[in-house]
């Protein structure tokens, strides 16, 4: 695991470095660096309480947790909840919904910022480029609640603007309640993601594109490459490492749809297609107080996520790319 994500830069002053290389007795270190350790304490307390205590709390996935009896007093039941999950009726539906959304995201949402960044990169009127960038970055800062409300105001069955347009374009017929129909859930999720993320997502690709050595284009032109060939042989290879890194990050989060986004779009009518692992965990665990079962579902998802990110990293390295770690 990467311990130091930073590039090695300024080293500490020499006389300090001597301390770091050798082993300093704990007591002496505690005394010498007491202020640094004091500064570390509040943060350590945060990680202990809100990050590691919940990991200990995962043990309730193997118990029939009763809040009154606590973590130690509740009876241990082994893998009962996992068995219930894998053999029960929910698992297939949740896995299908989650993976189908992930697939749609990979197909439509992942490439969008790459395409937009490449288009922006070809704009030679820099004022126009900046103006477009400023506008398409806005949705990144808006909450999912706002995005949901905008969707509702545009697609509501009785006064939604877009709902009305589609209705009149299709020449009448029955009004469609897009917010409630199960078959419209996934298109709406993808539309929201495209609207919210494809502008902001360009930043990282634009940075990679800005780093391309102009001499490469010069050389390509010398060899007679037209605009298309320059794009194909210089621009695209330049952002390939960035695309790989983003792909690894995305596959690690394959099972992590934005809880807020899905939760807000879910209602009693579209639940069959809408429910994914995260929202199911909330629904069963918090709303239904089925703590142990929901924790088991969450633990399964968490472990699968870890496997995915390491798998994607391994695959990227096998394919000759630089991985994340």
């Amino acid at each position: 695991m990467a311990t130091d994500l930073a590039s090695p830069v300024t080293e500490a002053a020499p006389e300090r470095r001597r301390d770091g290389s050798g082993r300093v007795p704990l007591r002496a270190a505690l005394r010498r660096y007491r202020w640094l350790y004091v500064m570390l304490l509040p943060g350590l307390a945060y990680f202990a309480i809100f990050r590691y205590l919940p990991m200990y709390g995962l043990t309730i996935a193997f118990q029939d947790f009763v809040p009154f009896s606590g973590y130690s007093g509740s009876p241990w039941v082994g893998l009962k909840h996992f068995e219930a999950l894998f053999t029960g009726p929910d698992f297939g539906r949740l896995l299908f919904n989650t993976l189908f959304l992930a697939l749609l995201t990979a197909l439509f949402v992942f490439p969008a910022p790459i395409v937009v960044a490449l288009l922006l990169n070809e704009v030679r009127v820099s004022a126009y480029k900046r103006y477009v960038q400023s506008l398409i970055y806005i949705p990144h800062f808006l909450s999912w609640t706002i995005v949901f409300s905008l969707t509702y105001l545009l697609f509501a069955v009785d006064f939604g603007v877009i709902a009305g347009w589609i209705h009149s374009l299709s020449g009448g017929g029955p009004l469609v309640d897009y917010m409630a129909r199960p078959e419209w859930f996934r298109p709406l999720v993808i539309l929201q993601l495209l609207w919210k993320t494809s502008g902001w997502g360009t930043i990282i690709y634009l940075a990679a594109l800005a780093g391309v050595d102009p001499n490469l284009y010069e050389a390509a032109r010398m060899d007679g490459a037209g605009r298309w060939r320059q794009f194909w042989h210089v621009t695209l290879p330049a952002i390939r490492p960035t695309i790989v890194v983003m792909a690894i990050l995305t596959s690690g989060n394959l099972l992590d749809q934005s809880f807020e986004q899905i939760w807000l779009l879910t209602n009693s009518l579209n639940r069959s297609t809408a429910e994914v692992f995260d929202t199911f965990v909330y629904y069963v665990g918090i709303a239904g107080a089925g703590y142990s079962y929901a924790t088991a579902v969450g633990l399964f998802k968490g472990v699968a996520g870890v496997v995915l990110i390491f798998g994607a990293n391994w695959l990227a390295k096998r394919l000759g790319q630089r991985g994340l770690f």
Partner: protein
Amino acid sequence: MPVKKPAGTPIKHYGSLGSRVFDALNLVVLGGLALVTVLPLLYVVAGSFASESEISTRPFFLWPERFVTSTYAYIFANDTMLRALLTTVAVTAVGTVVQVALTFTMAYPLSKRYLPGRTLVLNLVVFTLVFGGGLVPTYLVVRDLGLLDSYWALILPLAINPFYLIIVKSFFQELPQALEEAARIDGCNEMGVFFKIVLPLSKPIIATFSLFYAVGIWNDYMSPLLYIKDNDKWTLQVLVRQLTSPDAANAISALDTVFFPAKGLMFAVVVIATLPILLFYPFLQKHFAKGVLIGSVKE
């Protein structure tokens, strides 16, 4: 630049017809994207100043036929609305201070390569990026701490973002060490160095992460959903959700719509929850873009 072309037809790359057609199309497509992005927002602003009947009957407009401010008058005469607004502003302000303070004080010792135990702590931090306890165990911790229905539940569970922590740590590592050494020789302890030397040098990055955290709290819907049950403690995001949903629309339209601007209310509440973000947008854009890039370079 004079370029010697290979034999064959001379290629004028950027001036060719195809190239110019592409340029024109490209500008149109990008302009279209920009419009698609902002038109919904402009429509919502226009709708918040329109009458109920105009919202129901006119398909799309960017300027209301009749300019109506009664929706906002209704909102600002309403306790629930005002309380939500105040709550959100207060929680965002306090939360940002707490989060920035915790993140920066922890990042500083972690930036000292010579500190024994640093690697262990860093590993523990990085591990939380890949794996966590998840929704229910975290909820149980918050509940056991007695934080349900407390505003602190909106702040403390998210007090340190491990990604931000690592970025700030890397920033501290790149600060020139000479100044810190000089202060130490002058008798400053590490805490003094941090407050007198390091923090003043870090103003831009403090601004960046204050904005990161502030936007995070302002936009947070999940924490209040999980931890706040008391209607009097709703935040703006919860109120937006409560007012703009199919269920709410049905419930509200059962009320007396003459005095109750049901549809206008949906538009106006969205505008109010969005406005602070848009007011700060110029700063946000600048700082966030920088933050994204610091993060990406360090990864």
